[in-house]
């Protein structure tokens, strides 16, 4: 009996030690992020994004400066905090990347295939979308998230996104909610935000795009979803697809009210 009790106490102590060391690791990671905040290499992407926005490109040789991100042609400041949204000229809901593709095709005269050939960069094969997203989102830093679902098509996208978030499938029988539906979950040492709660949804959405130190690349929200799908062993999430826009609408709307705070820096 005594032996049993001693073991039980030892077990309790071990459990306690595991919890505190996990906690201190999380604190250390927070400290590490704090130190990097000042020299976030996302700055380099922001600078390039502004260049890409202003460069005359495509068969028509025009810049993106007349591109309407929802607040009028050429208005960038604060635009990202209200995306995705319904655009009457395209008669559909669009997120940032989809809208940029739309502008590249309609304003600059690129073909759809040319415009979307490199959604994500690696090494010297750089993506214009990552640079543009870095700059455009930086122009919304500090702006309160204010995504509307009042248009029927926006509401439809929101509902579809919500359904996808809870939809279980694939060889692992996974849903987004499997990892992001409970508080205090993590993958290795990475805290996973609980996206079903206001605070988690806000923290998750407002810190993308982000510079990923482990990849040495700036990653966009489209990339985040793409990679979550890969990790779930779902079929590949097509860049700027209706599914990606719907899921983004659901997550962006749930972040409403929070100040946008990206490009951020992550492990």
């Amino acid at each position, binding site marked *: 009996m005594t032996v049993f009790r001693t073991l039980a106490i030892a077990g309790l102590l071990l459990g306690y030690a595991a919890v505190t060391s996990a906690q201190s690791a999380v604190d250390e990671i927070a400290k590490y992020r704090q130190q*990097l905040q*000042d020299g976030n290499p996302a700055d*380099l992407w922001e600078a*390039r994004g502004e260049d890409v926005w202003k460069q005359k490109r495509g068969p028509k040789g025009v810049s993106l400066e007349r591109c309407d991100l929802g607040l009028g042609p050429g208005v960038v400041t604060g635009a990202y905090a209200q995306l995705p949204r319904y655009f009457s000229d395209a008669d559909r809901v669009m997120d940032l990347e989809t809208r940029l593709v739309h502008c590249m095709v309609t304003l600059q005269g690129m073909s759809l295939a040319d415009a979307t050939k490199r959604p994500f960069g690696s090494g010297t094969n750089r993506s214009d979308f990552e640079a543009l997203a870095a700059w455009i989102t930086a122009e919304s830093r500090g702006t309160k998230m204010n995504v509307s679902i009042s248009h029927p098509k926006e509401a439809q996208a929101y509902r579809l996104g919500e359904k996808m978030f809870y939809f279980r499938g694939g060889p692992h029988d996974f849903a987004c909610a499997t990892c992001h539906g409970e508080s205090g979950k993590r993958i290795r040492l990475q805290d996973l935000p609980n996206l079903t709660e206001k605070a988690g949804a806000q923290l998750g959405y407002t810190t993308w795009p982000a510079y990923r130190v482990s990849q040495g690349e700036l990653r966009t929200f489209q990339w985040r979803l793409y990679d979550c799908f890969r990790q779930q062993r779902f079929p590949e999430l097509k860049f700027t697809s209706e599914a990606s826009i719907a899921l983004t609408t659901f997550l962006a709307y749930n972040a409403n009210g929070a100040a946008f705070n990206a490009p951020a820096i992550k492990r």
Partner: protein
Amino acid sequence: MADPMRIRAVARDGVVNVKVLMSHEMETGQRKDGAGQLVPAHFIQSVSATHNGKVVLSAQWGPAVSKNPFLEFNFKAGQKGERISVTWVDNKGEQRTDEATIN
């Protein structure tokens, strides 16, 4: 041609704080690509900062420095409105110089 650096320099109480973000691959020469071939080393070897024609920082770097390096340092005697210039040279002889005004 490499991308420009981002340089921020702020003078306070006679000391200038300089923050430099450089855009560079910083390949160590130890990694292999998808085909199993070594990726050739490509990294910044020397960095120098000048203020009024005088070198205020000179550094020798190696392959252990991270991709897109961030460098922060302080030096004395800089004034608001003056220029600071930073140059890096890598092992392939490529180089880049950028300037910024001290705030």
